[in-house]
């Protein structure tokens, strides 16, 4: 049985806004890190001196002034990406032409760290605990970005938010697969987003392990369009890849590499895929020991096959919850450039410092 098909995608990344910008940047391999001292919109002291930012991403300029006054950065990234994917501009007022059949599944760490921190700070520092900016209250809830997209583009299908750390992007593919399998939606937009702010910079800095120093943070959003294959297999020429399977697990006492080998092995077995079908592997490549263990597992599993190794997804920094969503679109980009990709399988793995492990198998078209 054919799995759900990825038929389109878009991204807002440190390479720029839109799919073409990501493809161009990814192919060039250029780094996107910039010194933060030139970024006027960032307020307060940062833990970092550089980061990989979406260039020129000022929400009011990208999405217009209406409806964006209280929009936080992560929501701006998601609304922009979904607009590019749907090829529409949408708007702040509820759509008069709602789309009942399209679902949205968004991966995130915590929504916007900044929105949560701002509200918490105001309740403590202002004269009364309720002297807070009420416009920011919705932003402090994790599903604000997904909800705003539904309003902005009139998406009335299921609207879900998944907080699974680096795994989030892969996890949304699984959630989307289930929505299609149960007939809850005809099309599912799956992806994940992460913003760069001063607040995230400090949270990351304080939680970083000794082996994770030197991490450069990145930001962005990547979304794919998922739909069920046609019953007779016809009319699926627009497919870029098939989602063969998604599996997840946690790191046990034997460590990351052993756990990940099990998770990937399970994914292959459930999908009925042989090792020899593998064309490429894509690692989430977190900093430090977890990243080394991830590569060790992939090498143990596939090293002798000499697959194309898609390392850290481009030079876009540590994009947190968006990491595995960017792995998906980087893999789709690489497949266009490889004569050996068609019909073969890409193995995407995800390792989170909290112990979450994930694997997605995509068959390239």
């Amino acid at each position, binding site marked *: 049985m054919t799995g759900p098909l990825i038929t389109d995608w878009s991204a807002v990344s440190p390479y720029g806004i839109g799919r073409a910008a990501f493809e161009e940047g990814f192919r060039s391999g250029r780094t996107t890190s910039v010194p933060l001292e030139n970024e006027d919109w960032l307020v307060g002291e940062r833990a970092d001196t550089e980061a990989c930012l979406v260039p020129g991403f000022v929400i009011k300029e990208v999405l217009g*002034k*209406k*409806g964006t*006054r209280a929009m936080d950065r992560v929501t701006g990234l998601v609304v922009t990406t979904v607009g590019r994917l749907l090829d529409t501009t949408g708007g702040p*007022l509820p759509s008069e032409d709602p789309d009942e059949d399209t679902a949205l599944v968004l991966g995130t760490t915590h929504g916007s760290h900044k929105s949560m921190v701002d509200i918490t700070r105001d309740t403590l520092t*202002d*004269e*009364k605990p*309720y*002297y*807070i*900016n*009420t*416009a920011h209250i*919705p932003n402090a809830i994790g599903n604000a970005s997904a909800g705003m997209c539904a309003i902005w583009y009139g998406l009335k299908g299921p609207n879900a938010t998944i907080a699974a750390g680096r795994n989030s992007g892969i996890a949304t593919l699984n959630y989307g697969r289930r929505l299609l399998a149960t007939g809850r939606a005809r099309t599912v937009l799956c992806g994940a987003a992460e913003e760069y702010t001063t607040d995230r910079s400090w949270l990351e800095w304080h939680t970083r392990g000794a082996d994770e120093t030197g991490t450069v943070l990145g930001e962005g959003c990547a979304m794919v369009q998922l739909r069920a294959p046609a019953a007779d297999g016809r009319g699926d020429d627009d497919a870029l890849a098939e989602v063969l399977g998604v599996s997840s697990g946690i790191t046990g006492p034997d460590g990351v590499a052993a756990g990940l080998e099990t998770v990937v092995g399970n994914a292959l077995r459930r999908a009925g895929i042989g090792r020899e079908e593998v064309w490429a592997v894509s690692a989430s490549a977190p900093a430090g020991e977890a990243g080394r263990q991830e590569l060790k597992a992939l090498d143990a599993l596939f090293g002798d096959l000499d697959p194309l190794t898609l390392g850290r997804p481009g030079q876009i920094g540590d994009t947190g919850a968006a990491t595995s969503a960017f792995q998906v679109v980087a893999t789709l980009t690489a497949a266009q450039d490889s004569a050996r990709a068609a019909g073969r399988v890409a193995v995407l793995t995800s390792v989170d410092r909290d112990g979450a492990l994930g694997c997605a198998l995509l068959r390239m078209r």
Partner: protein
Amino acid sequence: MANVTAEQAATIKEIVCEILELEEDEVTGESLFREDHGADSLRAIEILASLEKEFKVTIDQAELSRMVNLNGVYEVLAESAGW
């Protein structure tokens, strides 16, 4: 006109226009936030909370039903603040 100074009225209008995303010449004392300017309940709460914060007062949420236009806001705020 409620008991507000020109300066206070200007600040209130500025806050309301910012929240409703309107130019100041689009709003009159009588124009209705909801019917004429497309405000929803969240915007109404936002106006109330912003005024509380700006003028260091507490406004009973029951007063929202009177805060339908600028004149209503002036009245409620003057009463709540004891101006």
